[in-house]
């Protein structure tokens, strides 16, 4: 019976491998939207019902006037699910059920372009490089070809509560040309006078670190895609700032995206340092209308090359090459997001879209002040700031690296030395980057 035991052990082990192996295939077949056989039927995937899905729907209406024969189907799906489906389909090469047009976050696109060449269509004839902002185009260009149509800007900024900042003894003019030292100083005053935190921090989401790095033109990897952790002065300074805010007690900790948004909506924090698309989340708290204002991203004073501008997130439209209907898809994008200034200007009003299409800067809605944000011309501001965002190479593995970085940040906050921790992380990140190469 001893043999049986070993057989039983092997079988139970086999079941586990079976499960991991199956989970790869399962997601692939599940989406039943295997259609788009006819050339005039388009499917578009996007992930935010209040934002990019709405934009796709407005583009659909605009396109219906140009090409009434085309039927466009906009599908809303969680971003994680889109990524999981893209990963599976691209890996297996089976595009059944995949959409014609898909929205992909800028941090991820390099990986798809490098890992799966030929899967996404070359859109060089759709996207006119001189019409779009440079930093955005750089992420979707591979060997001289442009593969996407830029969508939203992630211009980073400080959303702040004017009432709380005033109670702390500061004015709107103090918020202009901020440095992080000044930001922390104001944070301490806010904490002392109002008892509120300056901003919320999610230990699993290092968006702030990313923004800080990019404001100095740096990233987790250098221009050649090599790991740039241990000797990255911008990253070190970013971590120092992060740790200082934590130790000065001007932050509150949240877990998960929604918890962060509700901390803002429930007046638990005086500011939110985020990409400009965060405006729609802030506007959820209608009772706070007029109490918010927007200031440029603070500057890191101890790092050379740092500016008062950065980026957080942002995404672009891509066409999947092997899905039937490629030409209609390209036509759709070229007549909507790649050229229709009226559509883009309307989107500014409807979904607070800050576009990276240069001509939109003169649009009517772009130059209209927003009452929610103390009647500031926020869209114009964001458009201006977008032009100063330093371009960086996001590399192929932002989220893998970030997962390691969250561990590093945790131990740095618990008192480990920044230099030693980053030296360790450097080795690990080199492992990730070389495995991907």
């Amino acid at each position, binding site marked *: 019976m001893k043999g049986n035991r070993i057989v039983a*052990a092997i079988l139970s082990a086999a079941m586990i491998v079976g499960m991991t192996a199956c989970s790869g295939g399962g997601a692939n077949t599940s989406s039943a939207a295997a259609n788009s056989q006819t050339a005039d039927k388009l499917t578009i995937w996007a992930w935010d019902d209040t934002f990019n899905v709405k934009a796709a729907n407005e583009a659909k209406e605009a396109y219906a006037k140009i090409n009434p024969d085309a039927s466009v189907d906009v599908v809303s799906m969680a971003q994680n699910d889109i990524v999981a489906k893209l990963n599976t389909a691209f890996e297996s090469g089976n595009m059944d059920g995949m959409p014609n047009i898909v929205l992909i976050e800028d941090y991820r696109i390099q990986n798809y372009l490098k*890992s799966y060449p030929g899967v996404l269509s070359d859109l060089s004839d759709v996207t006119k490089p001189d019409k779009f902002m440079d930093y955005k185009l750089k992420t979707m260009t591979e060997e001289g070809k442009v593969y996407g149509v830029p969508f939203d800007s992630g211009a980073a900024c400080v959303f702040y509560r004017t009432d709380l900042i005033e109670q702390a003894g500061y004015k709107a003019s103090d918020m202009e040309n901020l440095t992080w030292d000044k930001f922390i100083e104001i944070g301490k005053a806010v904490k002392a006078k109002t008892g509120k935190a300056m901003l919320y921090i999610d230990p699993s989401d290092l968006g702030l670190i990313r923004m800080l790095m990019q404001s100095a033109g740096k990233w987790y990897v250098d221009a050649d895609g090599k790991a740039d952790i241990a000797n990255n002065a911008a990253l070190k300074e970013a971590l120092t700032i992060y740790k200082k805010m934590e130790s000065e007690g001007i932050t509150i900790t949240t877990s998960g995206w929604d918890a962060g948004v509700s901390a803002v909506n429930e007046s638990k924090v005086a500011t939110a340092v985020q990409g400009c698309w965060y405006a729609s989340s802030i506007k959820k708290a209608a009772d706070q209308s007029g109490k918010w204002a927007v200031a440029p991203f603070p500057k890191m004073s101890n790092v050379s090359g740092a500016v008062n501008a950065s980026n957080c997130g942002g995404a672009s439209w891509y066409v999947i090459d092997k899905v039937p209907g490629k030409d209609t898809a390209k036509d759709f994008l070229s007549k909507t997001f790649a050229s229709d200034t009226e559509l883009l200007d309307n989107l500014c009003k409807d979904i607070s879209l800050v576009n990276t299409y240069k001509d939109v800067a003169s649009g009517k809605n772009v130059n209209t002040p927003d009452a929610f944000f103390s009647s500031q011309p926020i869209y114009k501001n964001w458009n201006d700031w977008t032009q100063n965002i330093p371009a960086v190479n996001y590399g192929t593995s932002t989220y893998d690296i970030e997962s390691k970085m969250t561990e590093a940040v945790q131990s740095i906050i618990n008192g480990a030395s920044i230099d030693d921790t980053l030296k360790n992380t450097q080795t690990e990140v080199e492992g990730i980057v070389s495995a991907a190469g």
Partner: protein
Amino acid sequence: MSGNPNTVAKQRQNQPNRHSLEKRLNRWGWIFVSLSIVLITIFVFIPMIGALIMSFQTGKGVNMHFGGLTNYIRLFHDQTVGKALGNTFVYLIFQVPVMLILALIISVLLNDKNLKGRTFFRVAIFLPCITSLVSYSLIMKSIFSNDGIFNQMLANIGLSPIMWTTDPFWAKVLIIISITWRWTGYNMIFYLSGMQNIEPSIYEAAEIDGANFLQKLTHMTIPLLKPIILFTTITSTIGTLQLFDEVQNITQGGPANGTITISQYIYNLCFKYTPNFGYAAAVAFIVVALTMLLSIIQMKVGGKENQ
């Protein structure tokens, strides 16, 4: 395994036909099992071999090539694997014994024939395990979120709130609480059905001999339930090694990978990060090795007498 149905037929048959009949029965036997053999080969063994081959490949996306032991070497330097293994063992060492002891105690209490409403209690305790993994995880998440019901209760009785989801220690405790809540009833059912098979007269005999409740439990119930305890230990261990849904939904592995499990790391490597299926397969084989090892140990330790 030795209870071969052929032997019955064999005895009834006269000698001359024995061989041909045995052959015929064997043939039918093979035909009956062939379908499941084919299916298990296609859906389990071939993917297994595929996964093993994949675990030796490195590269980007579609440009995979043979990389020797690269993935396995990286695995030993990967601190997240270490962290995930550490977390999994913390769950294993604390959660499995707590849950099984709890299940045993509850089932002993609910096995009492004089207890009023015991069907109700049985159903109530079993009920968590028919809820969907995702929905119960989301409920746990909302109860234990930093400004959730639990912390409000703590605040009402004057205690400081516990940072369940953002403190690495308490996040692990939360995961342990959740899976214990979900799976205790499931294991209780096994113990209860095991206890039905224990002859009541031996308890009567023990009572006449003056055995108290504790003596009956430790000297009779537990030894007689040993095969079932072994079974639940193995299934719970394997279940813990595969833990995914709860962690994914309650903490998403956070804070800073403080609650990440091996299965979740495999998922992240495939579907959340830049896809690296080769490395993910290599990590999956760690789970295979561990499950085999643990199962063999458990059978060696606890399996002797039930053979």
